[in-house]
């Protein structure tokens, strides 16, 4: 009989630490309250001969004490919880990236070299991995108990999740946001491999005789001719190298941080937000890309010009 799930991520052990602290705290207070009640119930039961003189109607210092002490403890817990949360939300810049697409009722994952899997996700041990996730229909949620992580996966939007696996092995992941009939069957497994095995596995997905270039986003980027306008210098469109996470000044004076949703919007509806100093000439790619291709392109743009646009070296 297990009481906690297997533990396989760096953040996971920190979450467990806080969890056990909370368990101890709760046990202490529950025992304190239950014990006091029990004691009073026995001591002051109707037939008992106890001193009942001068029962206090109220006691201000006591009230203030039992307001202040729990509040102080809670502030500490809040602080630690927020710290972990912010850590969970901020992927390191060197994380390798995997695209996760959810739909009723399966998970599709794709490595940056194009290798795709259904309801499986292979990741290397000890290296940070970032999942770029979107849904094709309703809201799902990607949940890996062994990593102590989950994140809802939304349609027409991107959310991310990142982790550094600490144990080789296979761990379950679930869909934890109810998504219809097959919700309970959206189960898969994360396979954590030694980096060497992982590279081997990654390379083995390459179909023999296929061109060297496998990153589907990069292929699309070339095929659609994006670079014709989005050149590093003197392009008709703004340069895209290292665009991800940068603050962009728009023509109406607003600024915006270039996140995944902004990148997607600019591919599908370029005129919605025009970068200051550039003309509104880009055609819309709405309908010209499948939802999956959109995600691949966004995923590629995220890595573009950062030295990570190439697939991991074998």
């Amino acid at each position, binding site marked *: 009989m297990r009481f906690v799930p297997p533990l396989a991520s760096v953040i996971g052990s920190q979450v467990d630490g806080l969890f056990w602290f909370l368990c101890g705290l709760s046990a202490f207070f529950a025992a304190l309250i239950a014990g006091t009640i029990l004691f009073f119930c026995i001591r002051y039961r109707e037939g008992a001969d106890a001193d009942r003189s001068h029962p206090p109607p109220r006691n201000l210092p006591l009230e203030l004490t039992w307001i202040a002490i729990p509040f102080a403890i809670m502030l500490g817990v809040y602080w630690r919880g927020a710290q972990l949360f912010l850590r969970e*939300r*901020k*992927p390191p810049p060197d994380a390798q990236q995997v695209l996760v697409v959810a739909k009723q009722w399966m998970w599709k994952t794709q490595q940056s070299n194009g290798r795709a899997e259904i309801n499986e996700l292979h990741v290397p041990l000890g290296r940070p991995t970032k999942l770029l996730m979107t849904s094709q229909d309703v809201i799902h949620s990607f949940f890996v108990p062994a990593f102590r992580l989950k994140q809802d996966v939304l349609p027409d939007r991107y959310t*991310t999740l990142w982790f550094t696996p600490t144990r080789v092995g296979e761990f379950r992941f679930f869909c934890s946001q109810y998504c219809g009939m097959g919700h309970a069957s959206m189960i898969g497994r994360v396979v954590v491999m030694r980096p060497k095995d992982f590279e081997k596995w990654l390379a083995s997905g390459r179909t023999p005789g296929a061109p060297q270039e496998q990153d589907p986003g990069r292929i699309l980027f070339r095929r659609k001719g994006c670079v014709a306008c989005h050149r590093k210098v003197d392009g008709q469109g703004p340069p895209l190298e290292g665009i991800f996470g940068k603050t962009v000044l728009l023509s109406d004076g607003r600024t*915006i*941080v270039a*996140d995944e949703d902004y990148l997607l919007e600019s591919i599908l509806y370029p005129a919605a937000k025009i970068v200051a100093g550039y003309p509104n000439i880009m055609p819309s790619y709405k309908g010209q890309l499948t939802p999956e291709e959109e995600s691949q392109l966004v995923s590629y743009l995220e890595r573009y010009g950062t030295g990570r646009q190439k697939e991991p070296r074998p």
Partner: protein
Amino acid sequence: MTSGPRLYAMVYAALLFLLGATFVIARVDLGAFNTVAALAIAWLKMGLVVAYFMHLRDADRLDAMLFASGFVMLLFVLLALTLGDYFGRVWLAG
């Protein structure tokens, strides 16, 4: 004079004046100030209606408190915290 046709007529005139004002201001491009002005005038109009037509000025304090509680809830809670999420998506990206 807390109520009576003369007072009502004055309030009515003020309301029409404010309507005219908001209409005129809206025809001048003041950027973001357009919205601010339009909403400020709307609040003013509401204040007049509530205070004079609905007699909140002489209603007992409970009514005032209830009405205020509705607005407090709406403005500072529903609007503020919901918008907090949307603004927060920019403030604390990620």
